[in-house]
């Protein structure tokens, strides 16, 4: 009896991407975002760039949602490719922002943000006041 395809993998295939390698990477990242990070994930595909990407929704993101680009840790990027990608898939033209999801060989996924423009660092967190005799829980 032929084994049924995973529904998530099937859904990703239906987007239109034919590359098995890209599908495998996207599948792993999807699982990490939806099952481990507990985000609401929407799958999308850009035909011109032949790339699957996800829009994840969660309270931890400043705008409520974030664009994730699944990539292998063995891949190479360039500034021109990143700019093309941002212009193609980001709706926010003022400082488009994408999050690269690098899938490692041990199946772990690391996330790094790239935003167009010069963005200052986050301000330092304010000091936590402790009551006398109380241990800090941080």
């Amino acid at each position, binding site marked *: 009896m032929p084994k049924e395809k995973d529904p998530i993998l099937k859904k990703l295939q239906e987007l239109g991407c034919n590359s098995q390698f890209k599908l495998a990477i996207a599948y792993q990242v999807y699982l990490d975002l939806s099952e481990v*990070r507990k985000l609401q994930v929407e799958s999308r595909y850009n035909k011109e760039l032949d790339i699957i990407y996800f829009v994840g929704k969660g309270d931890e993101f400043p705008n409520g949602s974030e664009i994730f680009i699944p990539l292998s840790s063995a891949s190479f990027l360039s500034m021109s490719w990143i700019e093309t990608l941002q212009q193609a898939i980001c709706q926010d033209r003022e400082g488009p922002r994408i999050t690269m999801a690098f899938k490692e060989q041990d199946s772990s996924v690391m996330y790094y*943000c*790239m935003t167009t423009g010069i*963005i200052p660092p986050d301000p330092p967190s304010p000091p936590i006041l402790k009551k006398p005799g109380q241990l800090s829980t941080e």
Partner: protein
Amino acid sequence: MIKVTVTDEGIPMVWNSEDWIKLRNEYRILGNLCGSLPDVSSQEQFHGLPLVLLPYEATLLREKKIARLVRYPSLARAPGKGVREEYEKYCQRICDGQLTTLVKKQRQSDINERSKDVEETEDNSELLKVTKRTRKRRKDSGDCSHSSLLNLAIEKFGEEELKEFMPLASSLCVQTFTTYPWLRKEDACSVKWRYPSTSAENLTFNVFKDFWEKGYYISSGHKFGAHFIVYPGDPFVYSAHFLVICIERNAAIRPSDVAVLCRLGDTMNKSVVLACETNDKITYQTLKCSVLSK
């Protein structure tokens, strides 16, 4: 216009303290002080003039007509007769000034001692009367200096004693110059400045110029593995906000490089910015660790 001296090795330097202050305060050029401060013991920590400019700083100053890059071939030659005579006259003035001061001090201390332990001898009483008269006259006329006292003492005790106070030449204070004091305008020769010459240098310079025009203070970022470290204000007052890396538009970036840069920025509490040139315009990408990675 500020003059920036370029050495034979092609290193631009500023030797004048007023020029250094002007470059820092008015034009946000930081450079690197590489000299030693004579009064400071920790000479590896606190540096003084000269200020060494980085090549892109010198190019910017030249382009904006703030400074002129010059060299002084005359400094490589032995000084001529005129300069040597001028120098000897200067040394003599310094020597005479110090001797006069030494003699005045010594004489004053002698006179003070003698006036305290005095027995009414004929010489001393004469001296005391004279000095009192002189003091009163000087006080009435408003001149309370001791020069009359000195002259009087020298007249009394003779010029011979003056020679006893002639100090050794090796014990005189000698001024060391931080700039050559006998340079003339016509000694400055223009320099053939060739930075930037390669595409990488062009990119570095254009990124530097772009940040400078935006009003930032920029310093070399080699200690942090970056091209520049960028401050929103004077580094004496503000911490840096950005580590800037200049990268060609089509150069390959590995995911491991992205990971390293993001972790570096996170540790240092600075934003890592990748800068490249697109259609004669500088574009930037700021890297940060995602909230999901923390």
